[in-house]
């Protein structure tokens, strides 16, 4: 009886771990892609932040 329950618990937990490892966060990836594309093509910051070119890798991002 005990072994049966332990087995059931393992069977339900192990696939969950596998799922966690292979899951691709599509929404987060889209958000990241949009941010990078806006930077590379300078789509969102033309008038507001004309100093965008002075952003150096040395300046740590605020967030």
């Amino acid at each position, binding site marked *: 009886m*005990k072994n049966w*329950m*332990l087995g059931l*618990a*393992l069977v339900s*937990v192990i696939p*969950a*771990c596998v799922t*966690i490892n292979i*899951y*691709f*966060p*599509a929404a*987060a*990836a*889209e*958000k*990241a*892609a*949009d*941010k*990078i*594309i*806006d*930077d*590379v*093509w*300078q*789509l969102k910051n033309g008038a507001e932040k004309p100093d965008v*070119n002075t*952003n150096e*890798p040395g300046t*740590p*991002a605020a967030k």
Partner: protein
Amino acid sequence: MKKILFSLMLLSTLLVSQFVAAAADMEVNTPAISAVKNSMQARHGQLAPFYASGAIGLTKDGYIAVKDANAVPLAQRGGLTGLVKSENADRANLYKEIAQANGHPEWQAEIQSTFAGRWIDKAQSGWWVQGAGGWTQK
């Protein structure tokens, strides 16, 4: 027995909550990613007229390609080929670095296909983009 079950449930809850926190945002602020981004940003000024003339276009796999070499004077074609090559090398590197920065090198292909869709979505009107049926003009 109940204790074991309870701790297993607790463990799985912890794993799941950790995962949810990690999924909220992707890490894109590493020095390697910034370097590639700056390089691409600097190159974009040179590429922009070629996008506009239809000489190059955005491919469906997240890269760029020469679409119509005849749109470029012969003397500039060598330079354009070099630009496209450097841009694609940067893009490949970008996808790889993002996957690695997030601890999942195996995500590279999915990151690349996500970017492919977003580049095309954000392309300016008049630019050429590659769909399932070939090149179309936005």
